[in-house]
């Protein structure tokens, strides 16, 4: 004899299923924060302030997306902030003001350095199988050291056209058409889109899938013939490229390199990944969720700023909000576990 349980009322079950997924709940939160910011910031929808907002969000978005890739592959990168600083220092050391071609050299050299940092982290995590927290902790000191060597104090030089990565209109030599486009589409947005495109392409290839496989269960992946070391290293290199893009933005904005500027961003990028709904254990979650998470954190900062919370309380508030941001879905997941 079987007792047939009546299905729960459709809308309730549907709503619960939708909102209690970590993915949708973060999107929902983003929407809410977006709305609040729009209300608080009076000129929110003006082109200028949209551009300014995009500019302030972009670096964390890029770092978070890169971090997400590493995390999904089963790793973690505690060196992203210092790597960012390092790249800015390399850029501003290779470039010589007034000599436009050095900008190109700088791009190439820094790109290679970025790949190099990815390789080092990748070897540590993927081949030597050192716990990622520790190996990237070690490498972050190495990056800091090299950065300090290049730029003991913030400074360095930058060519004029490099400003294109921040504000196309500021570059003197550009034709007006480019400047016009640049005023509507902030270069920061282009950089983010570049990043998204890069990930999109990779995610449709074998390596993209292997990144998920290795993060989900590295033994199964190995036994299925996947080169797990290479895959994790590739993820680290991808991360480095995202950090490289963020560095371009910073140098475009400040025309200088600073060995210590990136520090705080590291942990923020990890928080962004978690807030976006990606599991720290790896193997699942869409990289674009990190984008959502970074935006959430970005809007939180904006709201704190516009709500006129005194300076002293800002870190306090953001800390509480981060906890709330991840506690919500976690509590919901707990309830779901009683299946």
């Amino acid at each position, binding site marked *: 004899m079987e007792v047939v349980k009546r299905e729960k009322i459709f809308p309730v079950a549907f709503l619960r299923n939708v909102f209690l997924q970590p993915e949708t709940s973060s999107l929902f939160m983003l929407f809410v924060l977006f709305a609040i910011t729009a209300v608080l910031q009076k000129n929110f929808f003006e082109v200028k302030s949209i551009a300014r907002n995009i500019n302030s969000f972009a670096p964390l978005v890029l770092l978070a997306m890169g971090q997400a890739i590493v995390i999904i592959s089963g790793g973690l990168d505690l060196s992203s902030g210092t790597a960012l600083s390092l790249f800015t220092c390399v850029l501003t050391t290779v470039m010589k003001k007034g000599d436009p071609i050095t900008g190109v050299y700088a791009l190439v050299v820094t790109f290679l350095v970025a790949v190099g940092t990815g390789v080092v982290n990748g070897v540590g995590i993927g081949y*030597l199988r050192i716990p990622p927290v*520790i190996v990237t902790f070690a490498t972050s000191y190495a990056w800091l*050291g090299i950065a300090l060597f290049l730029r*003991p104090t913030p400074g360095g030089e930058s060519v004029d056209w490099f400003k294109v990565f921040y504000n196309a209109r500021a570059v003197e030599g550009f034709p007006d058409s480019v400047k016009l486009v640049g005023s509507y589409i902030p270069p920061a947005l282009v950089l983010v889109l570049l990043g998204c495109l890069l990930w999109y392409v990779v995610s449709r290839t074998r390596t993209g899938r292997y990144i998920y496989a290795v993060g989900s269960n590295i033994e199964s992946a190995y036994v299925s013939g996947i080169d797990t070391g290479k895959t994790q290293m590739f993820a680290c290199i991808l991360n480095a490229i995202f950090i490289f893009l963020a560095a371009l933005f910073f140098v475009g904005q400040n025309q200088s390199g600073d060995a210590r500027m990136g520090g705080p961003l590291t*942990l923020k990028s990890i928080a962004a990944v*978690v807030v976006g709904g990606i599991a720290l254990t790896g193997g699942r979650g869409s990289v674009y969720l990190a984008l959502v998470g970074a935006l959430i954190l970005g809007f939180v900062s904006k709201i704190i700023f516009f709500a006129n919370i005194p*300076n002293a309380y800002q*870190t306090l508030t953001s800390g509480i909000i981060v906890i709330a941001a991840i506690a919500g879905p976690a509590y919901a997941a707990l309830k779901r576990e009683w299946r």
Partner: protein
Amino acid sequence: MGVETLVKEHETISYGQTLWRKLFAQYGKIVTVLLLTVILFVFGGVMVPGFLSLEQIFLTLKLSAFVALFGLCQMIVIAAGGSGLDLSVGYTATLTAVLTASVMNGQNERLWMAFLIALVLGVLVGLTNGVLTSYLKLPPLVVTLAMADILQGIVNAYVAGKAITGRPSPFLVVLAAKLTGRFPNILFVLIPVALFATFVFEKTKWGQVLFGVGANERTAYLCGVKVKRVRFLTFTLSGVFSSLIGLLLLGNMGIAFKDMGSNYVMPSIAAVVVGGVPLAGGGGSYFGVILGSIFLQTLTNLLTAFGLGDAGKWLGFGIILFAMLSVYASNRRSR
């Protein structure tokens, strides 16, 4: 590495070999650290005049003691498994120092009050961390990180505008900063703590249950252990200890300032790893953690002594740490 699991599934392996592997995993790393530390000292002694002097050695021991004490907090949390980690130890200590400095005001009379405040604060922080990580199952990395932010915020708010006043009581200063002859008094704290901690870890049910939870929480659960409670308690303990260490930091520095504790956080984790405690939990020796702290401090001293400035110091630190970790890791992979 994956194939190793396949081997163990179906085959009988030489007992001697696995025993040796376990012994090495446990003690080999400690021997390695000890050896490397000695090598560093000798190297330093040759290259840098005065490096091997008794004063220098004691100074190193004194500086590493603080890292080692924070390392105890980390070891407790890490040993329970579940990706345990406490990034809030630095600011817990800082906040305690900041709050109690003005209470004590350079007198011994109010020391007990400071102690009480430290306890309460530590329990509050630890409890919150514990609830969020254990009962709400949030990742400790992010929770303790956010907690550190919150504590930093509180410090900022408390301090807003005015300078931090107050001085530690002379007792704390003597205990933390001063020497008896040439012997740093802080070691009078570290050594009993080390002995007591090791005893608790190895010989009491608390320590063994802790390691069991870290080794396999499901097995521990089925044996009747309240896993969540154990993990919750580890964070509470970590909070209390780090808060008390804050008092010692205050004693050592003489005043409280905003970034007092934050430079100890990552080194405390590094000390735990270098000392051979598995990050996944389930085992480890506090003695190894202490050795790890000494090694890291010696390394830093050596690099500073070479006069390379910050750049060389950090680069060297990163490279050597990386190299050490490679050696550890390669000992795990064998076929």
